[in-house]
């Protein structure tokens, strides 16, 4: 009996995500080597690896037969990842065993040569078999106009309404606005006879409005895009309450962040859209409870500038700090005010090379996509600087929809189905004003998708397949979400939401949808390793005044910078700038408990400051705070 030594094979394995540093054949080649038929069944296995996978399955079977109860328990308790990658899945199960069982039947004695040969008796496919043309890649399908429809039974007038909507949209695409207008009138009339409380009637009304807007007000967005940040936050909050999509997004992202931060003591989360910071109490509490104690947690929250002198970012930060204090988590918060994500520069985030960074983007990346794939689109710039931060993890949640197609009718059709499914799912919510305001929140998205173009159209949702391609191309690799996250998300849904919502596993990512239609997709990513990029070192000198509360006024020519002051004992203090009209930045107030000390006026601190000016300067500086002024030397 020969013991089959697997170590060599495993070391040389190129399968799945287990070996990120092995040399892999170029992607095209990889794709071509995938077994067609298994791909059609949902499994991606390289033809060249089939035998190896088969042998491993045999070994697992032997283990199962030898101790079925133990095996089942073990396999049930273990965390599974990306079942589509069969080779990796099988390997991970095998690795659960301290001593992987060998399978004697893998090798037999060849009676003629008396040598051990691999037992490879699988029948081969008849080469004369008629080839069944097979669409091997469902991922490819989704990139090529996947249109998923889940309908409920509709009354006839509802169907007529849909027919008219499609025809009207077609007229708009052709530029025949007068015919489109007459359809609009007909539809308004039909609306009065259709049940607009639920089903297609409700969502149709919003689409009719959006079409009207496009025809009569043009594609610049107007008042919809000008909706105040304050309004948006209120609507967002009610959308959060009325249905589980945002809760799922937060929960799944937090799981991934928690796992990524395991064993790290200095962690920094960058939130691309703070809103009310609803995501973070759970993470703070989870970190408080982690074995070994909580890390030092820094949170940088990005959000739009507040009008009227309010500072909502800071307020949220203070509340979160309060919570963190109550659970003994060392916490520091910084707000970065920016009306657009692409205005944020990495140096504003003040990432410390020693800390572990998580970048969290809940439905923000799509806003960076341009309508054309032009070279300098903001998405590439932003992804590039995210990468330069060398984050431990980047969590991405996006609407699972193809709303960025170039053709108007295609977009319209997709949106009609997507949003009617979403509205359908909202039916289960009976709490007001959550439901009504949630609907308005969704309505704004519809209006943007349908009636805006160019830079006004920010709701450029793309499906998971496209994000995978984009993120892989930008130097990220997937960090798979596992069966534990799946199970917990499912259980939470069962406990707290109406029936009909379903979580699905999609090649390492999780989606939440209504029945069989995924509506939102959550994924996690890691930067593909390389030498950490140098942080931005262009740091001109700035000086300015600051009052007792450290709110400073800057000379108009010097744009605001983020001050990050450290005392000798490494405690962090944040300073605030109250400068109005300071593009992109906001500084939180210092924690009142943290005094600067009696010699505050002559404290030496290290700072890095990088305003918009491009004059390069070297590090480090000394900063003096004296009589309400700070001076850099």
């Amino acid at each position, binding site marked *: 009996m020969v013991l089959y030594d697997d170590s060599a094979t495993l070391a040389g394995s190129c399968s799945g995500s287990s070996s990120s540093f092995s040399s892999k054949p170029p992607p095209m080649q990889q794709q071509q080597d995938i*077994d067609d*038929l*298994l791909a*059609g*069944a*949902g499994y991606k*296995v390289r033809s060249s690896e*089939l035998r190896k996978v*088969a042998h491993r*399955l045999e070994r*697992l079977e032997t283990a*199962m*037969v*030898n101790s*079925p109860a133990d095996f*089942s328990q073990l*396999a*049930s308790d273990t965390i*599974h990842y990306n079942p*589509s990658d069969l080779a990796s899945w*099988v390997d991970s*199960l095998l690795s659960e065993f301290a001593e992987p069982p060998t399978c004697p*039947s893998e090798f037999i004695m060849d009676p003629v040569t008396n040598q051990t040969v691999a037992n490879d*008796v*699988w*029948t*081969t*496919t*008849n080469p004369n*078999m*008629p080839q*069944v043309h097979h*669409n091997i890649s*469902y991922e490819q399908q989704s990139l*090529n*106009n*996947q*249109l998923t*429809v*889940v*309908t*409920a*039974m509709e009354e006839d007038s509802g*169907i007529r309404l*849909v027919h008219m909507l*499609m025809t009207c949209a077609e007229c708009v695409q052709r530029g025949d606005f007068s015919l489109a207008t007459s359809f609009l009138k007909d539809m308004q009339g039909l609306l009065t006879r259709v049940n607009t409380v639920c089903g297609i009637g409700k969502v149709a009304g919003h689409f009719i409005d959006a079409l009207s807007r496009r025809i009569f007000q043009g594609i610049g967005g107007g008042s919809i895009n000008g909706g105040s940040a304050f309004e948006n936050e209120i609507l967002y909050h009610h959308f959060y309450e009325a249905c589980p999509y945002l809760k799922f997004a937060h929960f799944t992202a937090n799981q991934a962040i928690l796992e990524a931060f395991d064993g790290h003591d200095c962690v920094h989360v960058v939130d691309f859209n703070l809103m009310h910071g609803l995501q973070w109490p759970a993470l703070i509490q989870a970190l408080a409870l982690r074995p070994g104690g909580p890390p030092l947690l820094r949170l940088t929250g990005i959000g739009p500038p507040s009008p009227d002198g309010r500072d909502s970012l800071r307020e949220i930060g203070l509340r979160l700090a309060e919570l963190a204090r109550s659970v003994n988590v060392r916490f520091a918060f910084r707000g970065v005010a920016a009306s657009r994500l692409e205005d944020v520069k990495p140096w504003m985030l003040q990432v410390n090379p020693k800390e572990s960074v998580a970048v969290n983007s809940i439905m923000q990346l799509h806003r960076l996509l341009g309508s054309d794939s032009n070279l300098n689109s903001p998405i590439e710039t932003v992804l590039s600087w995210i990468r330069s931060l060398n984050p431990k993890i980047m969590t991405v949640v996006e609407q699972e929809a193809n709303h960025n197609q170039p053709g108007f009718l295609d977009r319209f059709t997709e949106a*009609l*189905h997507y949003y009617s499914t979403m509205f359908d799912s909202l039916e289960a919510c009976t709490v007001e004003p959550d439901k009504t305001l949630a609907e308005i929140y969704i309505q704004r998205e519809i209006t943007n998708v349908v009636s805006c173009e160019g830079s006004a159209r920010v709701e450029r949702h793309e499906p998971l397949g496209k994000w995978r391609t984009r993120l892989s191309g930008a130097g990220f690799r997937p960090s798979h979400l596992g*069966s534990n996250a*799946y*199970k917990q998300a*499912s259980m939470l849904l069962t406990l707290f939401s109406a029936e*009909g919502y379903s*979580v*699905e*596993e999609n090649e390492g990512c999780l989606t939440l949808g209504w*029945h*069989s*239609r*995924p509506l939102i997709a959550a994924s996690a990513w890691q930067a593909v390793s390389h030498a950490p990029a140098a942080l931005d070192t262009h740091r001109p000198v700035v000086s300015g005044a600051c009052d007792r509360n450290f709110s400073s006024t800057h000379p108009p020519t010097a744009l605001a910078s983020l001050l990050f002051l450290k005392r000798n004992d490494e405690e962090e203090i944040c300073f605030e700038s109250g400068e109005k009209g300071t593009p992109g930045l906001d500084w939180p107030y210092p924690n009142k408990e943290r005094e600067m000390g009696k010699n505050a006026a002559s404290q030496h601190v290290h700072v890095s400051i990088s305003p918009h000016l491009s004059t390069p300067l070297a590090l480090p500086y000394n900063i003096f705070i004296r009589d309400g002024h700070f001076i850099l030397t």
Partner: protein
Amino acid sequence: MAGSNEINLNECKMVVPLNTWVLISNFKLAYNILRRPDGTFNRHLAEFLDRKVPANANPVDGVFSFDVLIDRGTGLLIRIYRPATGEEPQLNIVDLEKPVTAEVVPVIIFFHGGSFAHSSANSTIYDYLCRILVGTCKAVVVSVNYRRAPENRYPCAYDDGWTVLKWVNSRSWLQSRKDSKVHIYLAGDSSGGNIAHHVALKAVESGIGIMGNILLNPMFGGQERTESEKRLDGKYFVTLRDRDWYWRAFLPEGSDRDHPACNPFGPNGISLEGVKFPKSLVVVAGFDLVQDWQLAYVEGLKKAGQEVKLLYMEQATIGFYLLPNNDHFHVVMDEISNFVRSDC
């Protein structure tokens, strides 16, 4: 037992292509993990592991699909597959329920397999199979996402099948031009075949006409241990033990395998003599350990004077119809097509 298992693994390797062996062994392994000895089922892990695919109203290889929520209360979902007519380049959502145009259009109500516990209408393997059926039979296929065991025991799956049958029968857009009636076939593999039989029974009682039943490796059983069960136990991916588990999970608690749901022509079965039962096409795989029960089913139909055609695929294992890489697959698809189109 290790010794006999060595032989087992080798034997089944010799009758299936490598990729089929990998696919079915993968299911076997996963399903073993999911079934708990106490009769409960790891549903979360099952759903996590199952490969699924969304519907697509844009035609792919001449077939498009869309989902319909038939019953909000139970969450009963169906996936409808239709042949694309090829007239419009882009399918309009209104065309989803556009009336069928041919004189006679077979409508196949399909019940996926999974031993009553596994898989869904949107499982990738079954989405694929349904698309093939549309293509070969020039039919509309309605795949039923019935409630599964052990959470939902007998008769839930049958009730869901019956609900869908009534729904399909009442769609004017599915009526064949020839007689303004919906030409319905019931089809299914494994547990789906069992469901097809029982839904047909209910249809007959209620006066809904079924054109034919197609049973692919249908799941039947009984208290007795048959010769094939003893001979083939554990040899070709399936064990008696797992069969027993699934019956215990589906049948009412306290029942044995002679319950008529499991054993329709057994001691507790009802006679079909004189009943206007649809003609049946029954496919039996030569390496399926429950073939004696399937053959008994065919005999039972014959004895009751019912029209039945048996397709015995000698060298076939369970799941041979999941991948189009073997002769049996193509033979069976042709037979199903003939069965269905003989009424057109």
